């Protein structure tokens, strides 16, 4: 009986094991649901950046812009006019949310790479951080290096 109660209890809490995909939705032409393997098929890039403690690490993953581009988000030559009023809401497993603007991510606007990171110093991101997090070397305070990403939604700022 106690076991059944424990199992019911565990199921009733938010399931921690079922969070290994990212959905890309909103102002896209193609909704995506990406697994770790899917992310691994995108061109891989590395960036060096300092963590909260000031220690430098090598982060590997794919440029967020590449993933958004594959979902048909208005980047590059299409990032003009009203499309500059679009924003990216990234949500973590704990419901934490941060916002980037498309221009902060687009390589035609910035030489900074906002990385959808899967590996740090050659190892997969540890539990509690991974499997996916953002690494943005341009942010001095890493509060937008959102961990345990579960979804990315493109929105349009209302007039």
């Amino acid at each position, binding site marked *: 009986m106690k076991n059944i109660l424990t199992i019911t209890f565990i199921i009733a*809490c*938010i*399931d921690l094991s079922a969070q290994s995909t990212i959905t890309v939705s909103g102002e896209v032409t193609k909704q995506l649901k990406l697994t770790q393997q899917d992310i691994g098929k995108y061109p891989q890039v590395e960036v060096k950046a300092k963590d909260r403690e000031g220690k430098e690490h090598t982060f590997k993953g794919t440029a967020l812009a590449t993933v958004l581009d594959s979902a048909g988000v208005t980047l590059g030559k299409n990032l003009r006019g009203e499309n500059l009023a679009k924003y990216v809401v990234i949500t973590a497993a704990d419901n934490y949310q941060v916002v980037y603007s498309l221009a902060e991510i687009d390589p035609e606007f910035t030489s900074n790479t906002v990385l959808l990171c899967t590996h740090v110093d050659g190892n997969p991101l540890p539990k509690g951080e991974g499997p996916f997090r953002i690494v943005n070397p341009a942010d001095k305070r890493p509060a937008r290096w959102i961990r345990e990403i579960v979804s990315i939604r493109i929105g349009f700022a209302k007039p």
Partner: protein
Amino acid sequence: MRAVLLALIFTFTALPRNEPYELKYPANFGSRFTIPADNPITKEGVALGRMLFYEERLSSNNTRSCASCHKQEFAFTDNQRFSFGADGTPTNRNSMSLANVLWVNKFFWDGRTEGLEQQAIVPMTDPHEMNQSLGTSSKKLTQTKVYPALFEKAFGSREINGDRITKAISQFERTLISANSKYDQYLNKEYKLTESEQRGLVVFDTKGNCAHCHGGPKTFIELFHNNGLDSVQGRFRVPTLRNISVTAPYMHDGRFKDLSEVLNHYGGHIIESENVSPFLSRLSLTEDEKKDVISFLNTLTDTEFINNKNFSDPDL
């Protein structure tokens, strides 16, 4: 003449059927909330929702209402570890405060339900809570003298159904705004914290890292974390700390009887596991620091809120 007539007709049809309810809250709370387009808050809807919140006919044996487990004097909790429903059995989780639910999007300790309207259905129909289908509730209310007229005022016709019941209750719950504690007065520069409260606030913001999840004027961010409690593998809501001194016992299962037990947990007794939130401070707090944090937490009590006559049982 025709123009005047047209203007009159226009005025008549453009008049709202009922009066919008103006939500009043401090600017520093922000407006990150959603009111469903099909359930705008009106004075008539709130008045009906308040009646329904205290209505025991909504339970299978006419003994329980929303207010049975959400008592205003305890900031809409019930001061018990678990609550007892219409069938006499205890609930699985501790009753949560309803203060500032306007800013909550995912409900229950585990955040499984989106929106107040969906949330309200669960306790009304759960066998361990009010234990009655919305269909039966609608029939019982239809047979009363007062309710058909109140539903007409709120929704434009005398029809009573589950959708309207949950909408009215949600409207009332969205008005349960707590924003006049000593802490609010401190933020508005109208109250000076005592030395102990001030020291407690510093521990709360820095060494304790409490503010990471409970920061900001609302004292919660809608997050879900594992806080290192024995035998818990999943995550639970970061609840508001407003009125925390009157909402004992604490945690999803009410395991801690008072704030000093809570501070003992966070201040050195977190059970480590791979699921524990990385944001929890692992620093031990001294006895003095714990006392100061509790002094600070006591400034979050909003006596105006727990005595506000607009939120009390309308029949009393």
